[in-house]
């Protein structure tokens, strides 16, 4: 009996000793680093797994790059604090995102969040972020309703669908001269808002709009739909003889619809949005089908501006792949946060101070000058149109210039 107690007791005592030792060491090191320089964590929340992971990764590495450059002093000079980067995966889904948000809120060193990336995920997580007064700057959530909820901590560096949808509609009616337009959405919260804004503007400009909802397919992991639905849908669009078809959704399903339409002999103009702005659209639809498709985005072409080339090459070195949709926006969002932190000075910065600071910050980024309206939307909203030519997606220019 005695021996057995000793046998249990000895390891427990050793473990306890080890714990105190570790605890002591931990405390000591923490206090020394605190004394000289505070450390803040900038977190990124977006899909890092699942079907839309590529979009999430495009942004993740941009945030990571911005943080490491700031620490090295290349972008903002010498800073009074150290920055840490933390990536949190929400799978792009509204069900997963609240728990991801909760873990970021619980992490006391997180001072601001870049993201969430998707509109649905943002909608689900933002009440939590708002309650914790933790600033979130999304590079890509474009659903208009997000800015109308009174979330003072919500910011985004892209124009919302109220800019993109009407921009597309203006292009279709004024530039392409379409009197009749067929619109299709994939039933996602992003696409539904976008297509409503499009339909409204197109009708206002005098066009007749026929609208249909075709849920994203399981094949594309975008909903409950079936690939076979596009045969019948293409037949209906073809028999409408509408000269323009606008698709609100993502590239994978758009490619399937485009193929079905062309195989059915439809020769009208295909139009889509930033969810389709991906080289995979061209590879999945095939060059001949994709050719001529016009795709819009509230984001600008990266390789165009000269200042971007260093960003692009650094990004590629870090990520192992080239910059993609929303990389530059994520980079700008991160740097806007860092600029705000810098402005707040040397004293220990609170989460609420960052929210307040973001409301007044003016920061010139790669894609635009970032300045937020009161509701968190970016001030000014330019929509750019792109076109698929010879298998490449090239920028045509801002809609307001194209329409003239």
């Amino acid at each position, binding site marked *: 009996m005695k021996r057995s107690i000793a046998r249990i007791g000895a390891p427990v005592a050793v473990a306890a000793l080890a714990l105190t030792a570790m605890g002591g060491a931990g405390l000591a090191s923490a206090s020394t680093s605190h004394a000289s320089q505070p450390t803040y964590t900038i977190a990124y929340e977006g899909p890092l797994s*699942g*079907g839309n*992971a*590529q979009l999430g990764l495009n942004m993740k590495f941009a945030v990571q790059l911005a943080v490491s450059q700031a620490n090295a002093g290349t972008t903002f000079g010498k800073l009074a604090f150290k920055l840490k980067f933390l990536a949190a995966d929400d799978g792009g889904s509204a069900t997963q995102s609240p728990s991801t948000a909760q873990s970021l809120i619980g992490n006391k060193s997180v001072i601001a969040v870049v993201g969430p990336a998707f509109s649905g995920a943002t909608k689900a997580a933002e009440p939590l972020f708002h309650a914790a007064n933790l600033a979130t700057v999304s590079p890509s959530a474009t659903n208009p309703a997000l800015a109308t909820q009174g979330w003072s901590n919500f910011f985004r560096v892209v124009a919302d669908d109220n800019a993109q949808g009407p921009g597309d509609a203006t292009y279709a009616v004024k530039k392409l001269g379409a009197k009749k337009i067929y619109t299709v959405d994939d*039933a996602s919260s992003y696409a539904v808002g976008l297509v409503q804004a499009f339909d409204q503007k197109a009708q206002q400009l005098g066009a007749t709009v026929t609208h*249909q*909802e*075709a*849920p994203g*397919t*399981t*094949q*594309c*992991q975008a909903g*409950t*739909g*079936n*690939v*076979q*639905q596009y*045969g*019948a*849908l293409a*037949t*209906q669009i073809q*028999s409408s003889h509408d000269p323009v078809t606008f698709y609100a959704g993502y590239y*994978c399903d758009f*490619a*399937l619809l485009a*193929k079905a339409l*062309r*195989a*059915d*002999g439809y020769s009208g103009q295909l139009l889509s949005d930033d969810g389709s702005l991906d080289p*995979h659209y061209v*590879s*999945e639809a*095939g060059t001949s089908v994709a050719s001529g498709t016009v795709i819009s985005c509230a984001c600008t072409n990266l390789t165009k501006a000269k200042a971007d080339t260093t960003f692009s090459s650094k990004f590629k070195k870090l990520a192992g792949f080239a910059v993609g949709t929303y990389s530059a926006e994520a980079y700008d969002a991160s740097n806007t946060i860092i600029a705000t932190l810098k402005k707040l000075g040397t004293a220990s910065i609170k989460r609420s101070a960052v929210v307040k600071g973001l409301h007044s910050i003016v920061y010139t980024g790669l894609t635009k000058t970032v300045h937020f309206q009161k509701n968190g939307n970016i001030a000014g909203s330019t929509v750019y149109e792109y076109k698929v030519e010879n298998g490449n997606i090239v920028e045509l220019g801002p809609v307001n210039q194209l329409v003239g």
Partner: protein
Amino acid sequence: MCFTQNFWNLVVSGLYDGFLYALIALGYTLVYGVLQLINFAHSEVFMSGGFASYFILHALVGTNQPTGLASVGYVALGVLGGGAGGAAIAFLLERVAYRPLRRRNAPRLAFLISAIGASYFLYNLAGKEFGRNALEIPTLFTNGPVFSVFGATVQTIYVVTAIAALIMLVIVDRVVAMTRLGKGIRAVAQDAETASLMGVPIDRVISQTFIIGGLLGGAAGFLFGLNAGVIFTMGFTPALKAFTAAVLGGIGNIRGAVLGGLLLGIVENLGVACTQASWRDVVAFGILVLVLLIRPTGLLGEQLGRAA
């Protein structure tokens, strides 16, 4: 009004969907016939066929589009390659996921769980190994309108699918009706115990049944992939629909599966003529429930042996 507009167009593209459903449905029906078991991993047999044909054609054709007779040859090769891939996976499934359970006289539910587990394993493995984006099977022919019936345009891919499917369906029907192997399948389906007493090697017959189902399902994976590309999630909905078709026609009944597949394809398409694409499944499954209320055993009843 909406029903008559585009009527023939919708029937034609519905038939195309239907042929794919029929090919997949046969895999469910054959296995159900011999084992009274729904092989819920059949969706991954379908997917494996798609990937097998992709890798073969990608290596042989690349980016050069073949023409004329070469096109026909490559399509045939795709069908065979897809079939072989599907058959290999179906054979393995039976060996790994079902036979050990059968040896231990496991309850039916265990088979179901084993099937679902195998399905999850296979499609996640495919996603991990082959990537999360669709892979495009090289273009084997230019798809477009070929001719029209009653004003409905018939595309190249419809013709290719219909011909390939018809050939395979007729062969399977004849094999089950006339060969020694078919006799074995029918015998096991009617009464496995008696069949084994009469000297039918049950294990071998079951293996062969999985292989036949795999051949058809894998070939369907290729034909489907020709249009939509191959991706690890490709099996889910088509296989669910094919299962529906098999039940609609009478599960365990070969001609019933074909009839169910074709009907389901057409009904789905005509259903959306008056509504929207998002109502497709509501219409299809509504009709399935109605049919089953009136004929609980499906349109053609359920005996594999007698109907074939």
